[in-house]
């Protein structure tokens, strides 16, 4: 069963296309990562799924109901869109009570979510006095109020310290393991890799990848970084390896050879044959970040731009 199905979903704001003919099918249960660079259309997609923004074209369903009728699934969906929003002068509890009243939920549910997110004992303090981490937890508590089948969280770890990120991550994984479907938007790839079963990568409003995390990780490649013992041999070594058929890029005295671990011995032999002794030979496995940058392209991400500047392609 699918929790979210979109077909040609498009949203334009004037001349800007935030979401561009996006067709994706998200499975029920587990934690689903929604990844993309800033401005890729993640938040707009989430807003459309929640009925906050109407699509320009295309269609989508959430829990089997069309997004043109969000009232049909609102009671089964909890969401945290961008930063947590509350009445700062009210206590955390009063804020949650207000939302529980709006949803027609019993007040006992407020106690349950307060306890679940670990805010018990602090819930009578004004929300404005909360730290960023506590506000995020309060936001997640608000999203959990309706005991949702589908939880949509937009950047839930934004601004959190490492301990807070670990805490929220474990909380979301618990929810996923408990049979709920959690869609988490983030640009923190390590976080996505650590907790998601399924991942959707969006680029410029369109779909770059959708599938199990294992499938995405299977796309990782390796390269080998080598250094000549004497710096003056670097150019000679690069030419020798290129002549031997390898693709080599250079950053200062480090040569990066596009090859897997199995080629390490061959590279070492080729260097020796060229009369160069290697002072360093390291097999480096591409990270999820490398795959992400390869998918989203240098124009979409600052990291990609930095990477392009740092590595000069060598013919």
């Amino acid at each position: 069963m699918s929790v979210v199905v979109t077909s040609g979903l498009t949203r334009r704001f004037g001349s800007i296309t935030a979401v561009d003919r996006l067709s994706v099918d998200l499975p029920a249960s587990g934690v689903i990562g929604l990844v993309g660079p800033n401005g890729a259309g993640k938040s707009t997609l989430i807003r459309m799924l929640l009925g906050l923004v109407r699509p320009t074209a295309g269609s989508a369903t959430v829990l089997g109901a069309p997004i043109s009728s969000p009232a049909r699934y609102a009671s089964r969906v909890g969401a945290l869109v961008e930063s947590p929003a509350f009445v700062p002068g009210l206590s955390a509890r009063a804020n949650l009570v207000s939302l529980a009243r709006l949803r027609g939920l019993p007040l006992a549910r407020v106690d349950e979510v307060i306890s679940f997110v670990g805010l018990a004992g602090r819930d009578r303090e004004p929300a404005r006095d909360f730290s960023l981490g506590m506000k995020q937890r309060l936001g997640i508590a608000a999203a959990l109020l309706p005991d949702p089948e589908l939880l949509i969280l937009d950047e839930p770890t934004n601004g959190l310290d490492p301990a807070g990120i670990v805490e929220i991550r474990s909380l979301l994984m618990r929810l996923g393991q408990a049979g709920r479907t959690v869609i988490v938007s983030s640009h923190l790839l390590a976080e996505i890799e650590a907790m998601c079963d399924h991942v959707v990568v969006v680029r410029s409003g369109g779909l770059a990848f959708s599938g199990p995390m294992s499938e995405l990780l299977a796309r990782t490649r390796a390269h080998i970084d080598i250094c000549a013992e004497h710096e003056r041999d670097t150019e000679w070594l690069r030419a020798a390896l290129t002549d031997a058929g390898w693709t080599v890029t250079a950053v200062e005295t480090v040569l990066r050879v596009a090859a897997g671990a199995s080629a390490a011995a061959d590279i070492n032999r080729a260097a020796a044959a060229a009369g160069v002794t290697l002072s360093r030979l390291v097999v480096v496995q591409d990270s999820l970040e490398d795959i992400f940058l390869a998918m989203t392209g240098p124009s979409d991400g600052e990291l990609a731009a930095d990477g392009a500047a740092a590595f000069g392609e060598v013919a």
Partner: protein
Amino acid sequence: MLAATRSELVRMRRPRLLAAWFGLTALFAVMINTVVFSTVSSGVVMPPGAPGVSFPDSATLAGPDGLVAGLSAASTLFGVITLSFWATLTATDYSSGLIRLLVSAQPHRWRLLVGKVVALAIVTAAAMVVATTVNVLVAFPAAGGAGVPTSEWGTNPLSSIAGAWINAYAALLVWGVIGLVLAVVSRSAAVAIAIGVGYVLVVESIVKMAIGGDTDWLLGSTLTALARGGTTSLAYASAVGLALVYVAIGLGLAGVVFTRRDVTD
């Protein structure tokens, strides 16, 4: 809709907010009564149609409705307070991002809007009770100090107070709806208050001078007539009818904008 109203009332249960709203209302009630009675005793004649406050004469103050004359005299100032709070409480839903949470929890946006209006109307009624109570408490010493006879005030005080309360409250509801409409459209409390107050206190006076003739149907004049229970130029029934038209247009506009516009805040 009831759920939306109850939810909104929980969010309004903020001591600072209520203290500011009720405190300003009480302060204006004291100030207006003091000024109205002292103006009569000093013999100063205020120009008719001065923006914000209309000054009753000594005969009106000494009459059966003199006890609550301050309420209708200050109706525009109470209106400004009401407009400001309705606009602020509506616009902060946008500026705080709370609107995202509310609309995703209750996608029937009309229910959210009507629930908010009802909740604001309830708090406005409470503010009007404060204004009326303070007015009654202040009117006696103010009249005594100004030498205005109060013997006729006891003729039918409850009826007089209730009538003044209902008229002023009806006018305040229209003021509030104006604030809400402007806030929904502009999504900014400052812009909504500036436009609302600026129109009634400044622009309408200019419009009156510019077009001359019969201008009693204009918003500010209608609300003044409504708060006073009718004037010589605009009967009470006409004021009520016009006010209902303004409310219907305002809520209709707010509803259309609120239900059709994307929530991008």
